[in-house]
């Protein structure tokens, strides 16, 4: 098990689009924390640390708000119109032993036999919803597609994979 990403957060005094835009200009990302039947808290995170953590596949994070440290997972990310910058983050409180439902990306591994026979790989599902413990969330589900060939009149096959 690897260590969780640590993010230092500041509590936001003002809410609304104008104050959020100001924060983004200062290199911070507005965020909200909720869950575990506690009051939601509006915070801001450092944009650089956040982007770096997400780039390295961090999903479970330890967020330090003041002196208090809580374990959370990313619930939702909002991007700008070009899909470059993160403009808002939703975080949800979790326990390491808690069972949660998360979506995990599917990674196709290898080259399918059918591609040499004129077939085309179409990935209709690129993520799966799974239920697991917070500490055991996989980065991706790796599926080997080496053995998939082409059968005339039949599309390839999720069940066989």
């Amino acid at each position, binding site marked *: 098990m690897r260590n969780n990403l640590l993010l230092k957060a500041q509590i936001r005094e003002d809410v609304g689009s104008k104050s959020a835009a100001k924060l983004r200009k200062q290199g911070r990302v507005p965020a909200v924390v909720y869950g575990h039947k506690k009051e939601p808290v509006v915070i801001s995170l450092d944009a650089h640390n956040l982007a770096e953590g997400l780039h390295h596949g961090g*999903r479970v994070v330890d967020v330090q708000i003041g002196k208090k440290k809580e374990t959370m997972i*990313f*619930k*939702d*990310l909002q*991007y700008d*119109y*070009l*899909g470059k910058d993160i403009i808002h983050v939703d975080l949800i409180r979790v326990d390491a032993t808690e069972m949660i439902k*998360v*979506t995990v*990306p599917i990674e196709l591994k290898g080259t399918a036999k059918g591609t040499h026979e004129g077939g*085309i*790989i*179409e*990935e209709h599902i*690129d*993520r799966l919803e799974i239920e697991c413990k917070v500490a055991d969330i996989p980065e991706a589900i790796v599926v080997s597609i080496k053995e998939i060939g082409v059968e005339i009149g039949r599309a390839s096959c999720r069940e066989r994979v």
Partner: protein
Amino acid sequence: MAMMPKRVKHRKSQRGRMKGNACRSNFVAFGEYGLQALEGSWITARHIEAGRVAATHFLHREGKVYLRLFPHKPVSAKPLETRMGKGKGEPEFWVARVRPGQVCFEIGGVSEDVAKQALVRVAHKMPIRCRFVKRRHSL
């Protein structure tokens, strides 16, 4: 043949204004790689067809090309050497309204290198600046 609607409610439309950025169709949803518009513009059915032909020709029937644009808007024009007045001209061609951020074309089932080369060819056919984008795995 260039794309156009089968049936429309009104044959002619006013020009309208294009404000803001794309707030939908702004991420890769079908393929793995896409071509994203960085400027707003009308893109004609001929542009779209030229892009499609460029991509499919380069891919040699490998992979799959997805068109994320459709020319819904009719553009009318007056015939040459016609005096002004006498009403609005007849529909001449069809355009898609594209705002900055819209993903116009997508490609799936090929490697990144091949997809990039194909989409560069498509970008040359477009009247606007575009960039290559990849599918973003959501949480």
